[in-house]
């Protein structure tokens, strides 16, 4: 048969029972059930909490004792119905009775056979109690379980025992009757001097001889002849003793009858002396005790199985006949007889003696009691139950007490636990009150009681430690005199703001004059405010230092990445420059040859190389620009697409780059520059891990994390954007992988890396509400995955391609002054403007430009480079020019968006900035726009 436990284990665990739900259920149950439930949960009593409002009344949680009893861990039973404990032999009627009680919402108790996780069964004393909500409806069910298998077993053995004891008594009674009335016992008279054994008719029947032969007497040898060979020597010895002066004979032994049947007999006898005191006759009788023996054997088995010790005490005797197990239970050496005083001496004071030789009872009375003993062998205290029956002794006509004892210590212990539970609760409450008082005095955290106006009524000694003010100078007024004037929220204001519970931070002045940051929790109750403050000055300072350090690190990390890039970029740039210069040379050649139709391809090639170089520098500039975290909606695919070029150049030719970008990728909200930085760092790490070349894979995907997966990643369940960078490089050993995110941990040699890359990425991703995962194996590469939360808002806005415009031209007479120390640019700009119909003047530096401005009659617009030698930069030139000609429009062109040089304030006043490199058409448009705009 399939064990029920196995069958049930396959049952799916209901979803939705996460730690939060369980904690919430406990909180609710404890609020409804009170401190009793709290104590129960912590007690050694096995218990479950079920929620009848969920389908099938599933288990919400169990306590540790339940696991101990049943072998089921909490995770294995949560979400399942309690019937998982039932099995093939669980009584269906009891289960139905329990179910009915649950339906009616009433408390119920039952004993039923349950099964543990390992399939073993136990008798469970189950108690189900509804925990009622405010409306009196069962909100939870509380089930407590007690293993009563021991008591059950004792109960059943006891029943057997009693039946058998009764049978035994019947047999005994029959024997007694046989002996006394019908003479069922075979009797003999051993005439010692004559060496003859004379028997009665039963003796004759037993020995298979005629009555006459028996009456005439048989020889002692014939007497021993029918005794079983194994018992014969023993009996011969005992008889030998009788013939030599022993007085009492009492033996049981086996006889083998004429038909070969073997019977147990009990023989008793006494010797009678002659006048000289010498043994003369030995009178004896024997009865068949085969049945008696059989029952005795069954009894012995039953007793051993049930852990039951038996005893029999005949009133007037100083000893008690006991079984071996009786001695074991009392911790005594095994013996067949024990003195009454010995047994009673073990009973703890205040309990009645086991055998009371004084108090008499009537035949047929039954006694049952529990008592505690102290075992002499190990000093242990045990609880025992005694059950006894008073019987009339058939031989002495005295009363005898025949009974059993068994150990109930475990049951007692549980009982006591339950009983003390309430007491414990009370003392716990008391202890907690005392604790509170102790807390007030001993706590290192400042405690405060204030009135609703924020006036301090009582402050604990910790205040003096933290602020240095004596408590007396603090109470009686509000905190305003101590507050820091620059705090965003005054402590006093926050305290008196109202509401049930408030938390805030604020600074207070110490007696020494410096400031302490305190984190407050204030609870309003009964018209008073109970507050706990915690000195977080050190934490604040640390946090500040940390933030600064982090910023510095981030910057240095950026610079490191820039450094990493520079080499590759220089090489790239040279290539691009070669493309431009070579194209130009080719153009000149073709022009000299007059082959104008061949110019176009070189123009395209040069333009292409130049625009790629422009893109590179742009990116580099954007990258090195110092940024604080400025989250915006980011399209990761676009971001990756934008930096692919950069990555490709950084990786070198030996590394193959693959991108697997999921179409329809969700938006995420983070700082795009940081994300770029992060990805670039990962790529560089990947490159360094593949010194001999390999494949770099950048991938994106949408990830919808369910409860379990999210929990495993330490994230709340939800939708995430997943970005991963994988390489086919050397990989990491587990110990290295485990430390990969530690700051300053690096496997690179000195000077090659700060070891901050991954830790910075980790910081950034965590700050953005995501998580970083790393999978790596030596020789099998490394994959780093960034999970960033999905952003539900709208995208960053696509920069729509500019519509083709008609190239604007100059109005007649419009004059532009172009200033640049770089002759090439100056010439190009000037030529382009002339092409568009402007009158153009040129100057190589600021001084020359000013000279021209002073002389020339009409200059409508000044175009100047920003960074120029000769003591006058573009900005200064613009100022000077506008001093000469107020309202002169100025366009500054710069290769470097240096706001500090350009000066932000001035930009409004007719000075505009354009970043190099730029398309000449864009320049034309810009100038046209300025010309048409209002005067500066």
């Amino acid at each position, binding site marked *: 048969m399939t064990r029920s436990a196995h069958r049930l284990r396959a049952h799916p665990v209901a979803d939705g029972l996460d730690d939060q739900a369980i904690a919430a259920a406990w909180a609710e149950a404890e609020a409804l059930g009170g401190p009793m439930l709290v104590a129960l949960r912590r007690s050694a009593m096995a218990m479950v909490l079920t929620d009848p409002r969920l389908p099938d009344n599933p288990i919400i949680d169990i306590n540790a004792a339940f696991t101990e009893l049943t072998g089921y861990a909490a995770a294995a039973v949560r979400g399942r119905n309690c019937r998982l404990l039932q099995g093939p032999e669980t009584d269906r009627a009891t289960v139905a009775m329990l179910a009915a009680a649950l339906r009616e919402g009433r408390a119920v108790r039952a004993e039923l056979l349950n099964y543990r996780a390992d399939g073993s069964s136990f008798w469970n004393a189950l108690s189900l109690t509804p925990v009622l909500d405010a409306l009196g409806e069962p909100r939870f069910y509380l089930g407590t379980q007690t293993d009563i298998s021991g008591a059950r077993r004792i109960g059943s053995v006891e029943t057997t025992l009693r039946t058998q004891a009764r049978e035994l008594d019947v047999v005994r009674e029959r024997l007694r009757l046989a002996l006394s009335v019908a003479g069922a016992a075979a009797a003999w008279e051993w005439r010692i001097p004559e*060496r003859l054994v004379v028997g009665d008719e039963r003796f004759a029947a037993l020995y298979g001889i005629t009555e006459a032969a028996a009456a005439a007497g048989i020889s002692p040898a014939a007497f021993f002849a029918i005794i079983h060979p194994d018992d014969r020597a023993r009996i011969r010895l005992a008889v030998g003793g009788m013939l030599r002066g022993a007085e009492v004979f009492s033996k049981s032994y086996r006889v083998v009858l004429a038909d070969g049947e073997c019977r147990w007999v009990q023989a008793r006898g006494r010797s009678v002396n002659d006048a000289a005191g010498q043994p003369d006759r030995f009178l004896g009788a024997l009865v068949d005790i085969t049945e008696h023996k059989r029952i005795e054997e069954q009894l012995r088995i039953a007793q051993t199985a049930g852990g039951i010790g038996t005893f029999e005490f005949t009133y007037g005797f100083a000893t008690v006949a006991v079984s071996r197990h009786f001695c074991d239970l009392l911790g005594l050496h095994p013996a067949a007889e024990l003195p009454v005083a010995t047994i009673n001496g073990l009973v703890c004071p205040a309990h009645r003696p086991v055998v009371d030789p004084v108090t008499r009872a009537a035949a047929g009375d039954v006694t049952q009691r529990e008592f505690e003993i102290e075992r002499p062998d190990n000093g242990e205290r045990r609880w025992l139950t005694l059950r006894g029956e008073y019987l009339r002794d058939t031989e002495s006509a005295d009363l005898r007490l025949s009974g059993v004892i068994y150990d109930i210590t475990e049951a007692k212990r549980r009982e006591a636990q339950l009983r003390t539970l309430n007491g414990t609760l009370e003392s716990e409450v008391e202890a907690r009150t005392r604790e509170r008082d102790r807390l007030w005095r001993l706590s290192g955290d400042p405690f405060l009681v204030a009135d609703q106006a924020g006036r301090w009524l009582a402050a604990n000694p910790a205040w003096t430690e933290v602020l240095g003010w004596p408590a007396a100078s603090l109470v009686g007024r509000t905190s305003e005199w101590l507050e820091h004037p620059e705090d965003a929220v005054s402590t006093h204001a926050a305290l008196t703001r109202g509401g049930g519970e408030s938390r805030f931070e604020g600074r207070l002045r110490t007696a020494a004059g410096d400031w302490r940051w305190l984190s407050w929790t204030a609870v309003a109750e009964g018209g008073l405010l109970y507050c706990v403050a915690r000195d977080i000055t050190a934490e604040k300072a640390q946090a500040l230092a940390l933030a600064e350090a982090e910023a510095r690190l981030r910057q240095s990390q950026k610079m490191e990445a820039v450094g990493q890039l520079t080499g590759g970029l220089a090489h790239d740039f040279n290539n691009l420059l070669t493309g431009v210069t070579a194209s130009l040379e080719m153009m000149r050649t073709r022009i000299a040859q007059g082959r104008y139709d061949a110019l176009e391809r070189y123009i395209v090639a040069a333009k292409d190389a130049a625009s790629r170089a422009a893109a590179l520098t742009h990116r580099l500039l954007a990258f090195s620009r110092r940024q604080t975290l400025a989250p915006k909606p980011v399209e990761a695919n676009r971001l990756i697409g934008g930096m692919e070029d950069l990555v490709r150049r950084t990786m070198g030719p030996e590394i193959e780059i693959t991108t697997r970008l999921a179409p329809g990728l969700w938006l995420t909200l983070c700082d795009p520059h940081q994300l770029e930085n992060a990805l670039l760092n990962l790529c560089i790490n990947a490159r360094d891990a593949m010194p001999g070349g390999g494949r770099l894979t950048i991938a994106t995907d949408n990830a919808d994390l369910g409860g379990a997966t999210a929990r495993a990643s330490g994230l709340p369940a939800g939708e995430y954007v997943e970005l991963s960078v994988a390489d086919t490089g050397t990989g990491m050993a587990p110990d290295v992988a485990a430390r990969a995110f530690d700051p300053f941990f690096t496997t690179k040699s000195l000077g090659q890396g700060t070891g901050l890359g991954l830790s910075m990425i980790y910081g950034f991703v965590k700050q953005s509400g995501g998580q970083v995962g790393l999978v790596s194996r030596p020789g099998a590469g490394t994959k780093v995955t960034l999970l960033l939360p999905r952003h539900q808002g709208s995208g960053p806005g696509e920069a729509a391609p500019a519509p083709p415009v008609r190239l604007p031209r100059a109005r007649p007479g419009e004059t532009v002054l172009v200033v640049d120390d770089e002759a090439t640019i100056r010439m190009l700009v000037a030529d382009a403007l002339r092409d568009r119909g402007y009158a153009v003047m040129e100057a190589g530096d600021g001084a020359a430009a000013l000279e021209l401005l002073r002389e020339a009659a009409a200059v409508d617009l000044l175009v100047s480079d920003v960074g120029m030698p000769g003591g006058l930069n573009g900005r200064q030139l613009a100022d000077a020019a506008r001093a000469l000609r107020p309202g002169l429009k100025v366009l500054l062109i710069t290769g470097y968006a240096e706001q500090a040089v350009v000066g932000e304030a001035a930009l409004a006043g007719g000075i505009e900035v354009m970043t190099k490199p730029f398309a000449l058409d864009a320049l034309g448009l810009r100038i046209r726009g300025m010309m048409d705009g209002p005067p500066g």
Partner: protein
Amino acid sequence: MTLADRMLSPLEHDALTELVNIGVSRAASGLRQMVGGEVLLSVPSIEVVSHKAAAALIGEREGSDLVAVRQDFAGAFGGRALLIFPHGASLDLVRAVVGDLLPDAEARSLEHEALAETGNVILNGCLASMANMLERPVTISLPQVLHGDGATLFQPEPGDDDGLVLFLYINFSVRNRRIRGYIAMLMDLPSLAALKLLVGDFINRVMNDDTVGP
């Protein structure tokens, strides 16, 4: 009882029990004559244990307040015989011997003497009949009354700490008073070995005695 098993075979154990049975029967008859009334003595069990176990056994059962009558014996097997009572039982025995008519104070003053005499009757009867059965003479010293706990009573003599104790549990019934007590025979190993041999002889005699008679 591993010690007993090592010392005596089951048959030897039975034989020794019978020997003791004969002995206490004799003793009972002597006691009967002394008190002029009904005396029953029985030996439910005998054990062979070490000195230490004997002291522990009696301490466990009877506590530390014990009274004992001691007689030393010598011959083919020798040693120390003790008749031990819990303190209360000894007074009961004295009361049973001297009768109920004597005032308490007087009975108490007779306790020592009465105990010594009773002990002598029992131990002497027991030892003498055993010696008789074993067909070896034994000399027995005068009785001595001792008070103390098990450890004191079973303290081995210097030089025989490897000895064993033949421990007999006895029930007395004197004039309808039920009294329990113990007989202990402390013997060194050579004595026990000799006793074992004699017990073997006794068994042989009984077994070969086809006529079964004295």
